[in-house]
């Protein structure tokens, strides 16, 4: 079952992003239900990351609209969108390298009007959920790539978003880190909707119910994992290319 | 120090506060058995070309005093500091001379800006002050003597002369600070008084170097002559560009500033500089025994005071010599270095024979009644054209009367 029969949490209509002559995202229609988990796949340059940047306000879309819980957020500033409960984990870990892990998470948790106790609780539970409690006092800049990925995950979580956009969360992770990440995501998904851009098909299989395939800035197809995996066109544009 | 806190708090006004400070640290250094003559000049920085000779001349003058047995049987010592063409240093070093070195008198300050920085300081700490530069006039302060010429003495002579020579339509170029502004106003006054017309007065900040547009503007205005009140290094560019535009022989030029500091004739080629007419209180080419002797004496002391080379002899440096000599005369007459007594002595209408000619201190204004000379620059030498004896500083006299108001302490903006 896809999210269609539930009220949409996030809805993009004819979303388009042009750079000069290039059309990175081409009139994309996309709906996501509350607490849904969706995987975006597609070859490099298919427009997945650009799509994310349009959703989070880092880019002003050239055309189309984005609605969050029915509210139009097209062209709103990133911080405004974030405050509504849209969290994003970018492709290259986007963290405060100069600060220690605890500071990083605190910054995320402390946003808005909260008492010290609420904040401390959030921090503690997030650290433990992601399992980076032992890194608490390490300077993030000095951590390994995989660990930084987890830290960023924690940062996004600490913002207590209603939806998380994750751009290649498993990149640069060891197998057992990947497994952990998958577990964490499934667990997060109980309360939070997720959109995950991922290349690693194993990882996708571990978490996804529904997959959306991007190709040349447009949606090629959308459907249950098995169906998509089986589809020949998808094989050509994506898996095939990947095998070659 | 804390003992004097109460005294401080009850004191009214910064002056009084400082007076208290001064009281704690008596300025008169008679005890030291030496008389200290302070010199504040820019030996480095943008004005070093003017400051160096003034400083050297000050030491030279002090040396001459000691040769003649010092003052009141005491040795005279020159205390000089380099103000580096930096206003903040003027402030600092003036305080230093007054409070730390405790000099009896300060000679110096070059630009009007620097004078207005140190004049209040020296007045506050009761240190007599001599300002030895030609300037725009109007300073009215009993603690300050101005030996240089003012516009009423020079411009008043220069303008009619060149207008008779060249014509009645004048185009003025002036440096954009108070000397330039005020002098330009005087030029206008005298031009109109002589039935002429100032077509335009353009002001230039001291860092302007490109005069292309101006030169075209002048040509389109077609004046009979140009009056230059340009000042400083950057503005030299005008004389070069003027010449290279081939205007030199089309429109003649007079100036109230060219060569005042002495460097322009050296930096500008004869082709660029010849024929510029100026008017100052002193030229090295003054043909009197006194001046010849003065120059001869300097030549004999080159190694001692002038690091081997002939200093730039200008109104600035010659007046610095005068400044020191006047103070010495004042002290001799008063028989003490007590500031007020010396001032009173100097106010008794003293008169001197200096290389520049006869100089008399005007008690009303603390400015000087002196000869001024008109000269034409030919191949880097000033050929004296005319001499005007005993010109009063009538501009300052019009606004300032220290006999009536001994406490006045301002620079008047003379209404024209």
């Amino acid at each position: 079952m896809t999210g269609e029969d539930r009220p949409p949490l996030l809805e993009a209509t004819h979303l388009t992003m042009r750079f000069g002559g290039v059309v990175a995202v081409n009139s994309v229609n996309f709906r996501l239900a509350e607490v849904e988990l969706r995987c975006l796949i597609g070859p490099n340059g298919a427009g997945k990351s650009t799509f994310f940047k349009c959703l989070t306000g880092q880019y002003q879309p050239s055309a189309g609209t984005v609605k969050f819980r029915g509210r139009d957020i097209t062209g709103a500033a990133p911080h405004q969108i974030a405050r509504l409960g849209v969290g994003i984990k970018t492709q290259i870990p986007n963290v405060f390298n100069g600060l220690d892990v605890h500071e990083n998470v605190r910054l995320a948790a402390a946003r808005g009007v909260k008492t010290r106790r609420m904040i401390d609780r959030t921090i503690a539970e997030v650290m433990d959920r992601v399992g980076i409690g032992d890194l608490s006092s390490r300077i993030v800049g000095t951590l390994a790539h995989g660990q930084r990925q987890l830290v960023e995950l924690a940062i996004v979580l600490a913002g207590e978003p209603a939806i998380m956009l994750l751009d290649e969360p498993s990149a640069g992770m060891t197998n057992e880190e990947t497994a952990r990440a998958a577990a964490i995501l499934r667990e997060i998904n109980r309360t939070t909707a997720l959109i995950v851009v991922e290349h690693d098909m194993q990882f996708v299989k571990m978490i996804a119910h529904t997959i959306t395939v991007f190709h040349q800035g447009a949606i090629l197809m959308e459907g249950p994992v098995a169906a998509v995996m089986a589809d020949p066109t998808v094989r050509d544009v994506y898996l095939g290319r990947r095998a070659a | 120090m804390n003992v004097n806190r109460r005294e401080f708090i009850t004191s009214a006004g910064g002056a009084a506060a400082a007076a208290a400070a001064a009281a704690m640290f008596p300025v008169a250094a008679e005890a030291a058995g030496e008389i200290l003559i302070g010199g504040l000049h820019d030996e480095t920085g943008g004005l070093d070309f003017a400051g160096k000779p003034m400083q050297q001349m000050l030491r030279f003058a002090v040396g001459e005093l000691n040769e003649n047995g010092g003052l009141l049987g005491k040795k005279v010592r020159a205390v000089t500091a380099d103000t580096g063409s930096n206003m903040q240093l003027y402030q600092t070093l003036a305080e230093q001379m007054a409070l730390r070195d405790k000099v009896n008198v300060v000679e110096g300050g070059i630009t009007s800006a620097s004078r207005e920085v140190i004049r209040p300081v020296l007045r506050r700490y009761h240190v007599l002050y001599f300002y030895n530069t030609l300037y725009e006039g109007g300073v009215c302060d009993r603690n300050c003597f101005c030996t240089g010429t003012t516009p009423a003495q020079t411009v008043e002579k220069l303008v009619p002369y060149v207008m008779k020579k060249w014509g009645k339509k004048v185009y003025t170029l002036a440096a954009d600070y108070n000397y330039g502004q005020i002098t330009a106003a005087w030029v206008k006054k005298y031009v109109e008084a002589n039935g002429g017309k100032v077509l335009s007065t353009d002001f230039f900040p001291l860092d302007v170097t490109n005069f292309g547009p101006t030169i075209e503007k002048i040509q389109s205005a077609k004046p009979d002559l140009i009056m230059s009140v340009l000042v400083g290094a950057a503005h030299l560019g005008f004389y070069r560009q003027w010449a290279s535009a081939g205007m030199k022989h089309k429109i003649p030029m007079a100036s109230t500033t060219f060569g005042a500091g002495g460097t322009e004739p050296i930096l500008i080629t004869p082709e660029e500089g010849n024929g510029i007419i100026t008017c100052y209180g002193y030229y090295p080419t003054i043909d009197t025994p006194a001046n010849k002797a003065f120059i001869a004496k300097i030549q004999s002391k080159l190694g001692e005071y002038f690091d081997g080379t002939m200093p730039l002899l200008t109104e600035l440096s010659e007046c610095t010599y005068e400044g020191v000599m006047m103070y010495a005369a004042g002290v001799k007459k008063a028989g003490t270095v007590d500031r007020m007594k010396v001032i009173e002595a100097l106010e008794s209408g003293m008169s001197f024979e200096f290389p520049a000619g006869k100089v008399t201190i005007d008690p009303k204004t603390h400015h000087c009644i002196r000869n001024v000379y008109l000269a034409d620059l030919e191949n880097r030498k000033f050929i004296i054209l005319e001499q005007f004896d005993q010109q009063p500083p009538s501009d300052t006299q019009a606004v300032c009367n220290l006999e009536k108001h001994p406490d006045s302490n301002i620079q008047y903006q003379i209404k024209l």
Partner: protein
Amino acid sequence: MAYALVILIEIVRAVAGLVLISTGLMVIFGMMRVINIAHGEFMMLGGYTVVIAGKAGVNPWVSMLVLAPLIVGLFGVVAERLFIRFFYGRMIDTLLATWGLSLFLIGFVTVVFGNTVAGVSVSLGSVQIGGFRVSGYAFFLIAVAAVLLVATYGVLRHTRWGLIARGTMQNANMAAALGVSPSLVYMTTFGIGSALTGLAGALLSPITGVVPTMGIAFVARAFITVIIGGPAIIMGTISAASLLGTVSQLMTFATTPVVGDVALLFVAVVLLRILPQGITGKLFRRSI
């Protein structure tokens, strides 16, 4: 009528002036993303080269067109090797470092040559236009600026070095890909940029006179022209110089030099706000 023509000439002269003072900086910035705040002092060194050579009896034209670029270029190479190269990729550090260099050079030259103006006199006679005379030197400057642009264009377009240069501008590893050590490219670029700067300083010294602090008058303008120009070296310089030169000169004619300068700066700031990537960051993308 003649007056209008004269004004036009003055405008072109101003534009040429901006081109002269900013080309060197542009080459360095365009290729290395290094903003050299000591730019003005490099010009000053060019000026002093002429003065000193003049004292030594060298023909001013030779020292302006040959010696100054040569010597300042060499100085640039040395500076790059000993100092600047340690800051590549750290833009702000580079700014601070070159600012330090700038202050140092001013101080150093002041100590050695003193702070008095040294004049350079070269006259090219003057040209009669209607009732006006315009200095021949103005035309000379305009010509040099034009030649400079054409030459730079030729080099970038048709020489191997130009190819490497353009490559490096696109992508720093390109040079390596073409089998040239980037450090060599950088050294050469900085040298050439410095040489152009020295030339500019030398050519302007007859107009401005030579003082240790003369650079300050230029650096801001050059700086702005480069930033406003944007990534494309030739097109950027031309467009920015034309725009700023015209604005400032018209204002100068209409009012005073101060207003002219202020207008130039003001336009620059506003432009930056509208086109943060500079003119060629938006327009003429494809040009060099």
